[in-house]
């Protein structure tokens, strides 16, 4: 049985809820009071994850941390189609590259959000600037991708865990005072992610309308 140690307003926890929903994996939730309780720094939690970070996922006796690593684990283990984390070495490298970008988005866009909404002591201006730098690159990557007939961050013709990993804190950027107005291709990509069958919402991340059905 899978158990997710979860904070509902955490984008990193949401990544796992999102992928498990898409894959149809059932799981239990143990709520962790990240804010304001700082329960992720409590003794019992540090025994689970000495890094003191959410999310943590247990699958039987296995204890896993780091959202990107857990995404890869879930996809490898529970995705019979093999699409979400393909075995192709070059695609694996692409996905891991974007998992690293997802961490950069967490340290910028998410940090700005924590500073503005959760009283965290981060340099708001620096984190916002950092987020804009990443979003510019992503928008360019996605814009040229659309010209090439590529809808997702990585080269396969379907989404991968890279799209799940980068999605939440892009969507939540406005909570950190980071507008997405200058990134139209990035905004179109978020529509596509929100139309993946099995998509679930979290506070601040809402569904997209239905795509136009073409006969």
């Amino acid at each position: 049985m899978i158990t997710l140690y979860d904070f509902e307003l955490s984008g990193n926890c949401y990544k796992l809820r999102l992928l498990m929903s898409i894959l149809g994996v059932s799981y239990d939730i143990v709520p962790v009071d990240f804010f304001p309780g700082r329960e992720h720094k409590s003794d019992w939690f540090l025994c689970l994850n000495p890094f003191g970070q959410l999310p943590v996922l247990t699958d039987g006796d296995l204890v896993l941390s780091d959202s990107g690593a857990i995404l890869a684990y879930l996809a490898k283990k529970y995705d019979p189609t093999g699409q979400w984390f393909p075995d192709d070495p070059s695609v694996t490298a692409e996905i891991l590259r974007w998992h690293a970008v997802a961490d950069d988005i967490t340290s910028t866009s998410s940090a700005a959000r924590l500073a503005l909404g959760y009283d965290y002591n981060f340099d708001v201006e620096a984190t916002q600037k950092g987020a804009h730098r990443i979003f510019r690159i992503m928008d360019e990557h996605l814009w040229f991708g659309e010209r090439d007939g590529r809808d997702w961050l990585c080269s396969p013709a379907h989404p991968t865990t890279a799209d799940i990993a980068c999605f939440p804190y892009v969507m939540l950027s406005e909570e950190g005072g980071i507008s997405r107005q200058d990134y139209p291709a990035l905004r179109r990509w978020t529509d596509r992610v929100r139309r993946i069958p099995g998509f679930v919402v979290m506070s601040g991340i809402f569904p997209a309308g239905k795509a136009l059905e073409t006969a």
Partner: protein
Amino acid sequence: MPLSLTDPHWYPIASSDDLPFRHVYQGQLLGRELAVWRADDGNVNVWENRCLHRGVRLSIGINEGQELKCQYHGWRYANRSAGCTYIPAHPADAPARRIENRKYPVREAFGLVWSAANAELPFAPFPGAEAADWIALRPMPVNAAPEDVAAALARLAPDDQPAEMLSELVVRLAPVTWFVQPVDSTRAVIRGLHAGRPEAPLTVLRHYNEMLTRLRDRLERAAARKPQPAPLQPVFEQVSVDLATMPDIAVPRGNTIPVVVKRKWQSADAIMGFELAARDGHLPTFQPGAHIDVHLPNGMTRQYSITNGPGELLSYVIGVKQESTSTGGSQVLVERVREGDVLAISEPRNNFPLRRDATRTVLIAGGIGITPLLSMARFLDKSGLPYELHYFTRLGEQVAFRSELEVLHGRVEFHTGLPREASSARIAEILGEYSFAQHVYVCGPASMLETVRATAAARNWPDEAVHFEYFKNDKIIDNSTAFDVELARSAMTLHVPAGKTILEAMRQAGLSVPSSCEQGACGTCLCGVIEGEVDHQDVYLNESEKRANTAILTCVSRAKGDRLVLDI
């Protein structure tokens, strides 16, 4: 020259590629934020990026193809008109027609979408626009003053071939014409149009993207060293509270609108379809279930439901029944009105509002009664809400608007030639036992309405869950009584003699009172009752409304006693 909020010039605000179907693009021009979306009919809408309700951004709304729905509170706005078509949980379930979001002029041309802060100037193509095919380059947002951006673009020209300044913010450096979109006083978007179709378009697109990236970095470094001008301060005008909270259910008859009979066709045995097109631009927003008054060449006025789906405002389609016993209204339309004729119609009015918060919506139509329910089904269909449509026709009577019904995704059932008892039994089956948040809408012959109302009541459906609209009052009006009406707000007392209606008495006394059908069916002349007992003779109010004795239709109903006090 400093940027101005009222600058009437047209600027590109998006690329055509930025507007795929079912997406809402977030744009900005001269400080004003824009929600830009393409409807399923291809029309591009450029609106103020704020929902009139609470000012939530519409760019995070849902583009449903014909309507844009606000993500937070579900207010809906129609393609083309930006008219609000729905306010959830509203007491009347339907907004007044005149709640409209702010729109900006729009033109799609040369691979770009153009708009202006106001409609003072007509759209004019840039010099040489027609001479070439254009491909739009990747737009480049820059955090720098628009005039600095234009000047920097001009400086890209080689010395021996200076840039051509087509206007203050348009620079031609062949083969590319550069447009600077003034987003705000310190922000701009560079949009380039490349003339001709290059052999390797992607290489060209990448080349200019790299060039613009370098230019942007330079411009932003320079801008950071300069004092920043203050941002433009557009005013976001919110809709007034009275409009947003308590619209009238019956909007008094206003001016008429001329329409052209674009198409007239036989939709079924004895049912003619008419497509009435706007002569210029689009027709007003309407809600599902709404009807128009059609002014006929013989001076009569008749009500017909609009069958259109959401956001279809270029023409209204109505269905007209050819009746052998017709008193002349529909007969004139069927026999004398031809394609190309001009008719006058009223603005749409809605006495048959559709709720969109039901857990189960049942639409029951009989014969020509399909028309308002077709519109409702189309709205529910587009919103992806579940519904079932049951269409009863007599033997030999064909199904009208069949092709329109067949493309719907909901449950659509045809019941043909059932005898009366079998119809009643079928209706009882369809309705089932009432449970919370179920709603039934019925339109058809009076006998069918009575069957549905009686069946629903027997199965514990409350009056509020049974919705119907009469176009015709078949009852025989008893106007033999005489009584006085006191008009409380007008401070006058009138005598209503036998043979005359309250409405006629009020008009004779010089009051201007709205009315439409004048047979107790449409609700236009509805008026509040303060004192006295009403002799209801209309078919508009339902039983509980009649028992409440708080409203009267002044065109047919009368006083039971010798005195009535009306709130007028």
